């Protein structure tokens, strides 16, 4: 059965049709979330919430885009809201609750001594990504981590190709500045 037919059935309240859509997209939506938040439990919870939102919004889907694009738009909006909330909560934490900066370094040294240099690099990169504004973090995740095309990114984030290009450039420039001392080291991080 064609996807649009399944969507129409789901709009009419067919639970099985909605389950078909969930099965078709759950891994992709989860992949989208996990590559932004880098935590399986959080990504799983976000994916559940995204499908609930999609289910509730289904009567408003007018087939003006592909169902997948529409679902990814819901997913990105939800992930963006989560990142904003998460950042706000993090900013509101008292100084006592924030881990000391040296903690990461200690952890890194320990991991390095155990020969896990790749894991150390990933850890540092994720930390720097988390420090970035969410609009830059999202676009870097979509393009440089997940490898989506400019056209796909434009559709999901509702941006023109020119805006995708300029935002991506600003995001890379900012991340490079954050990583500059480490990138300039011989052999990278």
């Amino acid at each position, binding site marked *: 059965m064609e996807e649009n037919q399944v969507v129409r059935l789901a709009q009419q309240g067919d639970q099985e049709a909605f389950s078909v859509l969930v099965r078709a997209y759950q891994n992709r939506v989860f992949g989208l979330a996990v590559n932004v938040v880098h935590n399986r439990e959080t990504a799983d919870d976000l994916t559940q919430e995204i499908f609930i939102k999609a*289910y509730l919004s289904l009567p408003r889907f007018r087939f003006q885009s592909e169902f997948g694009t529409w679902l990814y738009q819901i997913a990105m909006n939800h992930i963006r809201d989560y990142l904003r909330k998460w950042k706000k909560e993090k900013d509101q934490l008292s100084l006592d609750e924030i881990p000391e900066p040296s903690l990461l370094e200690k952890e890194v040294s320990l991991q390095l001594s155990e020969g896990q240099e*790749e894991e150390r690099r990933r850890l540092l*990169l994720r930390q720097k990504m988390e420090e970035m504004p969410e609009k830059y973090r999202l676009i870097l995740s979509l393009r440089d*981590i997940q490898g989506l095309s400019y056209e796909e990114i434009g559709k999901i984030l509702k941006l023109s190709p020119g805006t995708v290009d300029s935002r991506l450039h600003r995001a890379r420039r900012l991340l490079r500045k954050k990583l500059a001392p480490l990138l300039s080291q011989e052999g990278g991080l």
Partner: protein
Amino acid sequence: MMNCQKAERLISKLVDGRLGSRDSARLEGHLKVCPSCAELLSEYQKMKNFLSDLKITGVEPLPYFEERLKARLQTVARPSLWVALERWYAAAVPVFMVILLILAGVLFLVQPAEVQMSQSELLLFQNQNPLKDTQAFFEEEKPETRQLKLLFAGLDSQEIIRRGKQ
């Protein structure tokens, strides 16, 4: 001559595989004479590789994803009345807006008809006694004069006076 700011933008496009041949040649020329931009290119390439290395592939949600979702959906299930209302609302709002626009257009374009007033109404409107002249006719002593004045007054009363011309 290309400046370093422009070169950085082109470097970003180059590592992304989106730089045209013309810009590529211009950037190459700049990199030959600018060691800091050549270093920048190396840093961008490293960064791109490290980022792509962050990709988590072949992952699936935690076990029993669908069962857990179904259980959650039952707690947030849309009432059918609400769905019907949502559909009606989505269709009714544009129709209502169109009707509202048409009504506003009709009210704007259709001017109210001009009000025509008789001589007596006009005098009343100007807070004067409309019987004042008639009274004067009957007070004339000579019957010929009285009849002539009444005759001419009868002709004058056919005239319609428009408020807008006053």
